[in-house]
């Protein structure tokens, strides 16, 4: 039930914010803030109460589950489950939810109630994506986060907002339909094998699928997820959407929506289609490396500060893609860590851009420069975030990228070498941001106030978390470990539900697990570490 509340709180909060927004806009801000803080507290309580290590033996790897029938004749149910990966993502969602409400506090002045309704419903949708274990339900939430996001960009966005919103919608929707086809394909294959119609994730796992069909079904999921991630060459919706979205929208897009793609790869592509995923792994890693370099070069070329930061996401998520398809725990942990820290550091940069834009009404870096003099605090924060973004050791992003690369090195040295070159390019564009905005001479004498207490608090919390994760990432690594080890082994412990209806596909999957071909030299020690 507690899982349901994670989704219900923003849904209810959103409706209330809309209603009370008509009375007083401030009321809807406070309602949204309180709702997201409640959500965050709830997520943190779950985190503290459920040490991930214990869960592995208990409930088939799920820390918490919730199950209720929905449309039983088609095998559709309200099935939510939480493991370490989803817990971390839910924490990130709730935290960035609070942040994005605060970031729009003075930013959004029109239709405040409806704005917050959309904002909270996106967050509910994202949380649902991270929790759903019924594929139909997953698809439902996948669409649910899309539509309010469309409104967010199209109504509160900047110059080119309609174009960007439609582009975002078409890319996501088209690839989402491919996923729907793949889900149905899996659904009917499972029926053919067992005579049972079900969208239940835990039951669908281990479905034996003819290999050519498995490849097609896997590609359906894969494309949907890499569009969201995004990987080159399906990334072009991202710069437009990020640039034209309001600040909160950019924070959520970069911080969360991109992560749903990576999450989907972890949750569905690898466990459901281990063979097919292993077959395309080298290809996916190359895509990741290309994205790292290509995104970085494009980022450097931009004059629009927000667009520049948008392209850096393409570059950073390349590390995630490499990490996921390296198929070992090191790289997996690196991908998870990069997902979290990228959400914080890039989110922070988007908020800074929002603040600057709000005051000087331009994002053109040719017109900035020398801002440090008038806003030193903002400059220092920007410097910190730029350093996080170029992967400075001691900050969380470094832990993520380093782990992803050291894991990737064990399976694919050329791809890793190219990705490492990306570190140099990241330095180039990160320093370029600082030079063109905060350093140098002031080109136009902007008078802008330094960070307000509210924004300072937001930034300070992000900075503290990034340093914490950079120096003591153990809590996050420990939380993700059991779930990642489970994926690595390709073994899904039989849940209590499946105990009653044993699945013939399961045993087959246990014995010949293709993921073991990519096993690192140290596969035994993972278990030793856990004890």
């Amino acid at each position, binding site marked *: 039930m507690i899982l349901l509340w994670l989704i219900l709180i923003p849904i209810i909060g959103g409706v209330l914010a809309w209603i009370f927004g008509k009375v007083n806009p401030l009321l809807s801000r406070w309602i949204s803030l309180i709702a997201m803080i409640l959500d965050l507290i709830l997520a943190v309580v779950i985190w503290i109460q459920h040490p991930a290590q214990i869960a592995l033996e208990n409930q088939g790897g799920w820390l918490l589950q919730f199950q209720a029938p929905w449309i039983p004749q088609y095998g559709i149910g309200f099935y939510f489950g939480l493991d370490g990966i989803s817990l971390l993502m839910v924490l990130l969602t709730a935290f960035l939810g609070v942040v994005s409400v605060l970031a729009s506090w003075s930013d959004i002045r029109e239709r405040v109630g409806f704005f917050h309704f959309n904002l909270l419903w996106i967050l509910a949708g994202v949380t649902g994506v991270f929790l759903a274990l019924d594929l139909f339900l997953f698809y439902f939430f996948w669409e649910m986060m899309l539509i309010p996001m469309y409104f967010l960009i199209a109504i509160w966005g900047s110059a080119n907002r309609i174009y960007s919103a439609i582009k975002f919608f078409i890319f996501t929707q088209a690839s989402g339909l491919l996923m729907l086809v793949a889900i149905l394909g899996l659904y009917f294959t499972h029926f053919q094998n067992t005579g049972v119609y079900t969208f239940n994730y835990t039951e669908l796992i281990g479905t034996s699928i003819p290999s050519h069909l498995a490849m097609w079904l896997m590609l359906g999921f894969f494309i949907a997820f890499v569009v969201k991630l995004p990987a080159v060459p399906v990334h072009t919706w991202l710069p437009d959407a990020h640039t034209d979205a309001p600040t909160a929208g950019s924070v959520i897009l970069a911080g969360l929506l991109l992560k749903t793609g990576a999450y989907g790869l972890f949750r569905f592509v690898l466990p459901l289609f281990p063979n097919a995923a292993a077959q395309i792994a080298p290809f996916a890693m190359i895509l990741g490396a290309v994205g790292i370099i290509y995104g970085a070069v494009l980022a450097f070329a931009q004059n629009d500060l927000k667009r520049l930061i948008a392209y850096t996401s393409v570059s950073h998520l390349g590390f995630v893609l490499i990490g996921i398809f390296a198929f070992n725990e090191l790289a997996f942990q690196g991908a998870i860590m990069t997902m979290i820290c990228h959400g914080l550091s890039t989110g922070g940069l988007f908020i800074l851009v929002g603040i600057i834009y709000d005051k000087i009404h331009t994002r053109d870096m040719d017109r900035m420069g020398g801002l440090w003099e008038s806003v030193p605090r903002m400059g220092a924060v920007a410097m910190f975030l730029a350093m996080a973004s170029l992967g400075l050791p001691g900050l969380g992003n470094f832990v993520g990228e380093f782990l992803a690369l050291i894991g990737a*090195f064990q399976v694919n040295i050329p791809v890793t070498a190219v990705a490492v070159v990306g570190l140099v390019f990241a330095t180039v564009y990160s320093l370029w941001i600082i030079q063109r905005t905060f350093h140098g001479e002031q080109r136009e004498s902007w008078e802008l106030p330094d960070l307000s207490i509210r924004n300072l608090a937001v930034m300070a919390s992000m900075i503290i978390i990034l340093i914490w994760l950079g120096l003591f990432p153990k809590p996050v690594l420990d939380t993700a470990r059991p779930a990642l080890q489970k994926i690595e082994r390709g073994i899904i412990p039989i849940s209590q539900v499946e105990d009653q209806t044993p699945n013939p596909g399961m045993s087959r999957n246990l014995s010949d697990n293709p993921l073991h071909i990519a096993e690192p030299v140290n596969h035994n020690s993972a278990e030793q*570490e856990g004890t």
Partner: protein
Amino acid sequence: MYSLLWLVPTIPLVSFFLLMLVGARLPKKTIAAFGAGSVGISALLALVISFTFMTSPPPQHAYTQVLWTWIGVGNFSPDIAFHLDALSVVMMLVVTVVGFLIHLYSIEFMREEEGYSRFFAYMNLFVSMMLVLVLGSNLVLLYLGWEGVGLCSYLLIGFWYKDPANGRAARKAFVVTRVGDAAMALGLFLLFTQLGTLNIQAILEKASLQWATGSTYATAAAALLLGGAVGKSAQLPLQTWLPDAMAGPSPVSALIHAATMVTAGVYLIARTNILFTLAPPVQLLVAVVGAATLLISGFSALTQRDIKRVLAYSTISQIGYMFLALGVGAYTAAIFHFMTHAFFKALLFLGAGAIIMSMHHEHDMFKMGGLKDKMPVTFWTFLAGSAALAAVPLISAGFYSKDMILWYAWSSKSGGAVLWLVALIGAFITGLYTFRMVFITFWGETKGHIDKLPGKTIKIPLIVLGALAIIGGFVDMPHTLGHFAPFSEFLHSALPEVNAFELGLGTEVLFQLIAAAAALGGIYLAYQLYLKKAIHSREVSRGAVRGAVYRFFFSGWGFDWLYDWIFVKPFLWIARVNKGDVVDAIYTGIAAVSRGLHNLVRRSQDGKVRVYAAGIALGAIITIAIAVFL
């Protein structure tokens, strides 16, 4: 006592956070007290710990303090842990003591500057990161310090951020060193994948067990680490950033770009010496890189007009000597030269800074002149530093360390005549450019106006460093001078002894005389050229060919130009051309095509019944035709 080790890097770090958070609101005296005081306490602690280490060494001459597990994934579990052995004791002492003196100097030097607290914050962060670098017990923590000092170098080169040229120099330093760091990161990945650990001591043990001498993995690992080292230590081919780094304030040049950070590469190679011993081709490469660099940048130093750029090229050259020593397996000689170099080069930069400050930020030596009598303290200390740099025999610290390197370049089993000869020519050039600088700056007529003489907090560090530049070499006397060598003996608990031929005292004396003659010869030529003006120095750069050679040396052998064409320009070109993202053209293309089709089809729906009827008829005919003929 050892349990306090963690405080040595932590105290400056705490001061950094304090200054960043509240520094802007503090009075300058408080800022100075925090900034210099924290490093002072750190230096005292380091002295006490080092004294304990020397008097009652820990078992196996090493002490490790594990604070917590940093990243624990599978068997990848680097700790936040500090490792103290003879090598890190020396490094720690130099970093904190020289660092403290430079902080003391900065109190007065930077007083008039905006961003006083920012300056001390960055400097404190630097000292802390440098200490992490030399104390880190595993390569990942070392890498943290390594990147941390790189960050501080960037921040401090660009300290006067309003001038875009400074920003450019700062970015160049960061990006060029990061190229080396990328290679080093790959080296770390390789070491971990093959040896299953990144703990330095464990790597050294396992490498010598698992890898044969000359094996591919050892060679690759050593080569990749060398990539990192040449970046940080400004050696060929990544040396181009250091001369530009002089855009930063002089104390920064003294601390970061002379005494400590730029020698991190030397430390890295000395620290992982077994990997290099296992990879003879790479070790030879280290020596060759060092020899080539010391010569190339020596020539460049000869032609500079900016006093700080002379010192910058000279730093590159002196680190070249250290690399040469590492390459021939004379690790203690490299560390010895690192120490004396830290003393005298920090001194020279601080002295240059004092002159520049007194002369309204004038950097051009040819506009100085005659400062000998006007700034006596600066002059005498600068002279002591120059003597050490030029390796004036017997009375300067630089002589003992450089002589040791020259001797081992010849006598080590991995050395040879060519390496020795290059080093000898380098010694001659060093004497020449050093005293060219001294004579131009301090002799002759005064060309500029001096308005402000350095005060006490500037003089004290100069005097202390001046003393160290003279006596700092007495801790390691060669065989010919009684073989009083406590420094080498101390370091041998952490570093291997050089594998050298026994050539006898007579040969050694001969070689020392040759080395002394080379250094003195250089000084004498400088005297003839720039003081007596027996040969007019302008003659040297006159004429087309000589002018071209002069400009070639002046520009640092055209490396900037080369890299500009190979890397920078193509990158900028691609960025500019692809600004609009060529991939997006596919999608806008699809959109354009469908819009075109839409327009085409729309035109057919024009409401004219005749056209519709014709369409229906045509369609019917085609359908029937298909039905009949197929």
